């Protein structure tokens, strides 16, 4: 699937690909009115909450500036940061593993679990393990992985796919969740209502025994602190604490871009992240651990440092800031495209605006499957405005479109309609004289319009426009000509 360019770090594998071109997937998802209703409700309520708690902080912009600079610095010195982290984590009894790609990470985790003799693991929500398809892999190796985050549980029980990075079941409403629980939980109150508090209680009862008996837990990490060797997990429900505290063995899978230089940097990200993600001043629970602590928590502590295309993204100097992402999900919550198509349309583990740049950056844009993602945006800029680490998503989208066009240019011999349009446009708009010449033909456009002075049907690729919009009849005379006639001749 991946095609490696000479001198370019290898692209990522796993759940990073579109399943079909975005417009096609979007067309189908747009037809799912229940999902659209659910998404609209959820995204709109989170938008208001986010704005309120962000507005409370007089130094929000200063925090964003600090956050984005810290991340840039970390990426610029990534090798040193990772080595420093490794040294400190190891010094405190942790074991560091390195994984080039999804397959290698899956294998490392499987071997570690096997080594404990366990056939079951509990899991804290983690994008990295979702990305590498760890659960499916473990299952194929005879190890059951139980997701413990409520939304992940809903997705797992419903044999569904996550559609959001923070709230994977955002596309389901409370009644749908209730129905999944009634159908799939082995022990459940048949009179379960769809009150969220009751649903949370059902999840508690369902998972309690698993937590108390678990021997091995698998987690992701929100950050790693290089100068202390500390890892952090940010969560709400306490399932994270359960997994990070009770089992004997803890295996964390983390992308290499999650490392922060200094432990004090936590003060920046723990202000940016909760307010941007759930619109709370702080999430209920945050756990930090540094290797092994005697007599407290897991005594076998591992971390798998995952590349899987991250170095590939790092090599793109116009796209590498996408690696600064702290997975808060603000960009998708404010995105008008995501709001209407939902996360499944993006195919990859990473949906929404960040997914539209991150997936192709991780896999390489020349991978045909991800060629349509950078176009899944009207470039309205709401994502950039919301992003707590100021990733200029619209600019990277445009950059990746450029990469895509260039890659296709090399592959296709025959120019497409769009190619021809753009070539013609380049000539016409490349000189005042040329556009002036074309504008002489404006009256012709008037002929194309009907009596009501509207153009209602255009041919070729422009037909998409006239499916739901008219075009006004052009004027008789361009401004340029009017200026010559009226202003210059006087």
């Amino acid at each position: 699937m991946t095609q490696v360019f000479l001198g370019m770090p290898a692209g990522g594998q796993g759940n990073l690909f579109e399943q079909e071109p975005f417009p096609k997937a979007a067309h189908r998802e747009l037809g799912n009115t229940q999902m659209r209703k659910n998404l609209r409700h959820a995204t709109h309520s989170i938008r208001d909450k986010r704005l309120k708690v962000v507005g409370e902080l007089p130094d929000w912009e200063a925090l964003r500036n600090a956050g984005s600079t810290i991340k840039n610095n970390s990426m610029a010195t990534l090798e040193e940061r990772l080595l420093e982290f490794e040294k400190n984590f190891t010094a405190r009894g942790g074991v560091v593993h390195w994984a080039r790609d999804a397959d290698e990470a899956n294998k490392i985790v499987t071997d570690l679990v096997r080594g404990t003799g366990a056939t079951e693991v509990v899991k804290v929500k983690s994008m990295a393990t979702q990305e590498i398809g760890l659960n499916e892999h473990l299952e194929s190796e005879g190890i059951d992985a139980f997701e413990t985050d409520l939304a992940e549980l809903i997705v797992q029980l419903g044999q569904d796919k996550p559609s959001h990075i923070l709230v994977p079941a955002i596309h389901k409403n409370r009644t749908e969740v209730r129905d999944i629980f009634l159908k799939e939980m082995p022990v459940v109150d048949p009179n379960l209502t769809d009150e969220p508090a009751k649903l949370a209680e059902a999840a508690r009862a369902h998972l309690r025994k698993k937590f108390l008996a678990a021997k091995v837990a698998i987690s992701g990490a929100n950050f790693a602190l290089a100068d202390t060797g500390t890892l952090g997990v940010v969560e709400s429900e306490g399932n994270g604490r359960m997994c990070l505290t009770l089992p004997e063995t803890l295996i964390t899978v983390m992308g290499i871009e999650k490392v922060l230089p200094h432990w004090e940097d936590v003060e920046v990200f723990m202000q940016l992240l909760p307010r941007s993600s759930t619109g709370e001043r702080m999430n209920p629970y945050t756990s930090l651990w540094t290797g092994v602590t005697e007599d407290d928590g897991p005594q076998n502590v591992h971390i798998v440092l995952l590349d899987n295309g991250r170095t590939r993204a790092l090599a793109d100097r116009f796209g590498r800031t996408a690696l600064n992402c702290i997975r808060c999900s603000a960009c998708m919550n404010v995105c008008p495209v995501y709001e209407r198509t939902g996360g499944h349309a993006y195919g990859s583990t990473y949906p929404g605006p960040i997914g539209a740049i991150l997936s192709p950056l991780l896999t390489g844009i020349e991978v045909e499957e991800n060629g349509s993602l950078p176009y899944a945006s009207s470039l309205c800029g709401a994502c950039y405005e919301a992003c707590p680490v100021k990733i200029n998503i619209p600019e990277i989208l445009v950059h990746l479109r450029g990469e895509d066009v260039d890659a296709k240019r090399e592959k296709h011999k025959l120019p497409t309609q769009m190619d021809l349009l753009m070539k013609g446009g380049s000539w016409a708009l490349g000189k005042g004289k040329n556009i002036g010449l074309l504008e002489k033909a404006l009256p012709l456009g008037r002929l194309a319009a009907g009596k009501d002075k509207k153009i209602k049907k255009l041919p070729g690729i422009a037909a998409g426009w006239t499916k739901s919009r008219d075009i006004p009849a052009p004027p008789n005379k361009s401004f340029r000509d009017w200026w010559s006639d009226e202003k210059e001749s006087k």
Partner: protein
Amino acid sequence: MSAKDEILGRIRTALADTPVTEEVPREYRTTSTMSQEQLIELLVDRLVDYKAGVEVIEAEQIPEFVASKLKDASSVVYPQGLDARWLSALGSEVELRLDAPGARLSVAELDATSAVVTSSAVSVAESGTIILDGQPDQGRRAISLVPDHHVCIVPVSTIVQLLPEAMPRLSITRPLTWISGPSATSDIELERVEGVHGPRTLDVLMVRGL
């Protein structure tokens, strides 16, 4: 080549254009101008918003308030370093369970314990966050996690307004648990509801003169 060497090599290739690092502009707030009373008020407001129970009391009232919060508990776990006098007003029907090095309660025992009493290291008023750092008066992480009811003592002297003010007070390499209200989830329709896997009841006793 080992995976590590290969990944580090890829990083060097990727950064061949040698991007520069910049001084981090730390222009955000790092010092508070609030009085202690304002800090108390702010922290109370935040915790109440999270649906935690909050009382602001004097040091000598601790036993009385601990007892009243735990009037329905049948058993209570406490860490070795906790001031034992704080538990002195609990009724004789409440079983006290000490968790100490060499005498650890099992997970099953913790699960069968109704409540836990701990102290705390530092609290951030602006975000309503209480930080436990595993000192002897807070105990190991499991005891403040498994029982369904957490009574947490917050000495008023440990309250700061801003997170950056809390940082120097933390020993980062100890296991840290930051608690902002009882366990909760926003996973259904992005609406927050309290009470999932962590303690479903959080009672905070903010103590003056401590």
